[in-house]
């Protein structure tokens, strides 16, 4: 498998990245860990005449825990997330989800920025970030802007990021309450047949807030506001969970593929969401 030829760049700072992007336009693309992009280039489904490797760009690999927010640099890897104890203690859902992505080798290379910027509906972090109401900071020729994860995904591989913009940071409001990332896959290392991210707050036995997002059940991740709302004010009993599942099923739009027919995917989505809610509630 030999990809098409390309010019390779390894700039040391963001100014260097942006100037190549500006000069080469559509022919240029950034690469983080390469574990989504390189397979596509090998299959010649992606042709990147000018490849900009971000590995040496300064200041993109930090994890900063503030009082109210968590800031994760785009080049932080899934392995870094798993290994970072302070992060796992304030936002355990990040580690729980990262451990369910791919396999150890892929997790050493695959980055948070690449996972959320890629736009593949199979990626796990976009739904996770929607659940957590994260914002993505992008920089481009016209400066910097923040895009909420919940408004970022337009269609498969289509996002609100412009081609000449680079994602630098993911900012997450400090999560509160119980959590769960539940994923059904055909085998270890596989993309989700269905996955659910849940954060839920228990106020004396009553659900005070709930955030729910689903992965690989539409051409984008699905933040289901209605599913969360179905739990608020309840004791998260069986009826409330059924209502949440029904609301979620109204928001997703799976297609048939090698992971199964539509009816099966909807069934699995319901099972997975129910499990995720139960586990998150038990931890809330």
């Amino acid at each position, binding site marked *: 498998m030999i*990809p098409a*030829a390309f010019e390779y760049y390894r700039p040391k700072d963001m100014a260097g990245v942006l100037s190549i992007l500006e000069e080469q336009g559509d022919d240029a693309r950034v690469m983080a860990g390469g574990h989504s992009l390189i*397979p596509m280039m090998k299959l010649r489904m992606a042709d990147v005449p000018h490849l900009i490797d971000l590995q040496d760009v300064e200041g993109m690999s930090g994890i900063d825990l503030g009082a109210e927010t968590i800031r994760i640099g785009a080049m932080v890897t899934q392995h870094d997330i798993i290994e970072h104890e302070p992060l796992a203690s304030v936002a355990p859902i990040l580690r729980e989800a990262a451990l369910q992505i791919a396999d150890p080798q*892929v997790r050493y*290379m695959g980055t948070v920025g690449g996972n959320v910027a890629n736009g593949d509906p199979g990626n796990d972090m976009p739904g996770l970030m929607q659940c957590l109401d994260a914002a993505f900071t992008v920089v481009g020729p016209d400066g910097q802007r923040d895009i909420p994860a919940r408004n970022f995904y337009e269609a498969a591989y289509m996002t609100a990021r412009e081609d000449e913009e680079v994602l630098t940071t993911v900012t997450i409001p400090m999560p509160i309450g119980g959590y769960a990332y539940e994923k059904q896959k055909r085998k270890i*290392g596989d993309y989700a047949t269905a996955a659910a991210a849940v954060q839920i707050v228990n106020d004396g036995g009553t659900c005070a807030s709930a955030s729910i997002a689903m992965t690989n059940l539409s051409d984008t991740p699905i933040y289901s506001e209605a599913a969360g709302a179905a739990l608020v004010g309840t004791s998260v009993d069986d009826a409330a969970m059924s209502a949440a599942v029904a609301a979620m099923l109204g928001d997703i739009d799976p297609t048939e593929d090698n992971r199964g027919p539509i009816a099966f995917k909807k069934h699995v989505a319901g099972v997975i969401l129910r499990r995720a809610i139960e586990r998150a509630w038990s931890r809330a």
Partner: protein
Amino acid sequence: MSKKQHYKITVNGKEEEFLAEPRELLIYTLRERLNITGPHIGCETSHCGACTVTIDGKSVKACTMFVAQADGKDITTIEGIGGPDDLHPLQKAFKEHHGLQCGYCTPGMITRATKLLEENPKPTEEEIRFGMAGNLCRCTGYQNIVKSIMAAAAEMNAAKEATE
């Protein structure tokens, strides 16, 4: 369009300098350019782990990295872990516990396992299975691979305690 570039990588402690196109996959650089044929090509699609090498302390599938990305890096392959006259405890354990049949997956398995034991010197069976999930074997059914890694860990820990 893409011209050959000058690259310098360190493989098993030896500095290697050569000209290559940036798109060359590291597995081909190792196997065909440098004649380091321990890392194998199983799937070439990032799934099987037969091509696993260690790069700057990470287990990496060498079929999923361009040589240009590896420029300046320090790489260890199975050849750098131990040879016929000085087998690594993992190599010995794989031999003793039948951790291989055809042997095709073995260089990747052992290279990955060195890193796993470095990060977690006393893994449980479950932790081994999880930590080895990026390496596929079509022969053994994994049981003896897990046994071999358990045995190597025990031997390495005993040797370490003896020197302390």
